[in-house]
């Protein structure tokens, strides 16, 4: 019976590092977050998608815009030391340190943040400019004990219910439950991560009983409704349009491109049946997502007419464009891109297709955009499972945004306002921006919110969520 409490999880990518401050990287986070390392707050996507207490029992915004967190008491790290405000401060400082490059740091870019210990169980975070979503941001920071040196560690220590008990690089990572955990003891006593790049193999391993959960299998293999479950994986596919160069500097051309694509045709063919058509770069579960914005209907004739119109006005509609994609970015990418290319060509645009290797793609996918390939159309995937559009909007649409093809004062203003606003205001402003971008600016070509498929052995009680790609809290897993 005891053996059944061991869980084997097979994932695609090997985990290179188990560094808490890198836990925002999904492969690392999937193992670390809420298992070994915990955060102050926790975005619970199972229920209403709301922020819940974890190591912080409660938080309030002070009058000066800073945030006060009251920490949970009686919590110990797996190394035995007690958890207190100093640990939180150390975790934050360590994350922000210039001795190491922590990925989580990027969420705190563009602001000055100060962590101030008030007492052992209270800590203040002061940001300039004020951060309405500070509690959400802190759901991304894994807490480490204050003894943790400021260099990458391969032996993570945290307050979570598990400790790292074996790590054989390339083969497996084993976590086992600790008995002095502050919360409820989880059902899973130990969990082993296995790494198999091939989706078919991962699917097969559940079938043969070599693994219990495969969080990501290919849609083609997801044929058994008993074990295979789809979930929105928070990734959005879109095409970035640069409004600084011809012909995408003309709104009619941008609109025509949106109209030229038969998005419906992809669903259930090249993309899974459960994928959603997108109107924005963040999924519907995000704050301020605007349900009234409708997908641009497929209308090739309309597109042709628009382009005619633009051409008549002297817009260089026939300029050579290059549709760029990152190799193996998502399943079926080659077919999807070929279909997109064909659809754009059918309305009379001149579109080349090119696939780039990851490094090269990453290198050029930021401003200033390359010019030697004509007007470039980046096909990209964007991931925002964090629940707030601010993780998207600035980067992708602000005139200063590093991956923005948009340069529009109204957009800039809306972003600034929304970022500073809270609650309903915030939601309303984001909604407005979403509609403006989609329906008036045609700023880019949003395509799909993709879904993933997980295969779960019959005896396991667990369902994937939108957070599954970046986090896999073992505590949520039960046995039937």
């Amino acid at each position, binding site marked *: 019976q005891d053996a059944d409490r061991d869980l084997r999880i097979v994932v695609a990518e090997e985990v290179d590092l188990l560094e808490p401050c890198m836990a925002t990287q999904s492969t690392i986070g999937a193992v670390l977050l809420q298992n070994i390392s915990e955060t102050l707050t926790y975005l619970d996507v199972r229920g209403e998608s709301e922020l819940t207490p974890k190591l912080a029992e409660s938080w309030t915004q002070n009058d000066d815009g800073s945030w006060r967190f009251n920490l949970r008491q009686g919590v110990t790290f797996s190394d035995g030391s007690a958890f207190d405000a100093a640990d939180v401060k150390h975790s934050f400082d360590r994350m922000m340190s210039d001795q190491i490059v922590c990925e989580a740091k990027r969420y705190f870019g563009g602001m000055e943040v100060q962590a101030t210990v008030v007492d052992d169980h209270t800590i203040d975070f002061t940001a300039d400019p004020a951060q309405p979503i500070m509690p959400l941001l802190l759901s991304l920071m894994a807490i480490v004990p204050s003894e943790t040196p400021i260099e990458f560690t391969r032996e993570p220590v945290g307050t979570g219910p598990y400790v790292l008990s074996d790590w054989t690089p390339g083969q497996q990572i084993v976590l086992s439950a600790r008995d002095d955990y502050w919360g409820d003891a989880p059902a899973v006593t130990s969990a082993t991560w296995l790494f198999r790049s091939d*989706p*078919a193999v991962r699917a097969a391993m559940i079938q043969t009983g070599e693994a219990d959960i495969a969080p990501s299998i*290919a849609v*083609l*293999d997801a044929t058994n409704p008993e074990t295979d479950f789809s979930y929105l994986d928070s990734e959005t596919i879109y095409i970035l349009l640069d409004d600084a160069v011809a012909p995408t500097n003309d709104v009619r051309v941008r609109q025509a491109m949106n109209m030229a694509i038969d998005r419906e*045709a*992809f669903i259930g*063919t*090249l993309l899974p049946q459960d994928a959603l058509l997108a109107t924005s770069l963040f999924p519907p579960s995000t704050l301020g997502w605007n349900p009234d914005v409708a997908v641009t209907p497929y209308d090739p004739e309309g597109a042709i007419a628009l382009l005619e119109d633009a051409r008549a006005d002297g817009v260089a509609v026939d300029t050579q464009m290059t549709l760029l994609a990152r*190799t*193996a970015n998502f*399943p*079926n990418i*080659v*077919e999807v*891109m*070929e*279909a997109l*290319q*064909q659809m754009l060509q059918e309305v009379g645009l001149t579109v080349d*297709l*090119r*696939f*780039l*290797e990851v490094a*090269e793609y990453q290198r050029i996918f930021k401003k200033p955009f390359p010019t030697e390939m004509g007007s470039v159309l980046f096909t990209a995937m964007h991931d925002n499972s964090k629940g707030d559009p601010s993780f998207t909007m600035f980067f992708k649409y602000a005139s200063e945004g590093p991956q923005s093809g948009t340069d529009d004062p109204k957009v800039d203003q809306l972003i600034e306002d929304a970022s500073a606003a809270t609650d309903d205001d915030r939601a309303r402003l984001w909604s407005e921006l979403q509609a403006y971008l989609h329906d008036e600016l045609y700023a880019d070509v949003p395509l799909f919110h993709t879904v993933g498929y997980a295969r779960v052995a019959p005896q396991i009680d667990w369902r994937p969520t939108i957070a599954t790609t970046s986090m896999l809290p073992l505590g949520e897993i039960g046995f039937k």
Partner: protein
Amino acid sequence: MTHDPDIIPAEPGTLTRFRRMLMADKFALAAVIFLTIVVLMAILGPMLLDASAQRQNLRGRNAPPFDLDQGWLMILGADALGRPLLSRIVVAAQNTIMVAAGAVVFSALTGTLLGLLAGYSGPRTSQVILRMADVIMSFPSLLLAVIVLYVLGPSVVNLIIVLAITRIPVYLRTTRAEVLEIRERMFVQAAQVMGASRWRIAMRHILPVVFPTLMTIATLDFAFVMLAESALSFLGIGIQPPDITWGLMISQGRQYLTTAWWLSFWPGLAIILTTLSLNLLSNWLRIALDPTQRWRLEMKGRRS
């Protein structure tokens, strides 16, 4: 058969002789026919079928083979974008053969020449060549591809170069190993005594002995290169969709292996059959070129 013993009888032309020997080996004959078809496909295919190979039809995606309702082009089924696999295989032949033949011929030629040089020159030159081969041999092809991609930019020629370079050492080392032994044979020394140049000895006396082995390796390298090419296309070097090769078709069909086997099966079969044909042909050539073995073909020709 009577002839005047005092004159050298005229030989039937080389072509006639080889034709007869080819007729005598049914396998080789079939191979030649198949290869001719492939070459024709490579030359004419893109002209004839390019349009149908590119016409997408998402409704008819992954259409199964042997269903003639959609027209004869659909006999092999359709790919994930509903394009007829038959047209695509025909059209892809050009790029496939160009890249594979380019890479194999280039590596075999370079490797063989360097091998002859290494086997037949002073110890210093030979050392340099061989250590270079060592280096190439331990140079991972993927890294090479990425480097070439970045330094020289993507193109079909660069793809061929990358594929070729990594295969040079096997020809080089094989040739050189054989030369080490063959150069000790008496007939090589006899040629030396006649004043034959090193070049002539290498070409006329040594190469013919090594040639069949090199052919064997080269024919199998064909398959290897066709498959490896798709792996490099993945990096963005060389052939890019919507251009197509058999290797790319296979790798695109990979995920459908268990649900729509035909996507990667037919191009795979094309590669297998091409390799097989080349190999049967090289085995035939091995015998046809070896006077002490040639009777195997000549006798059969006579009997049938």
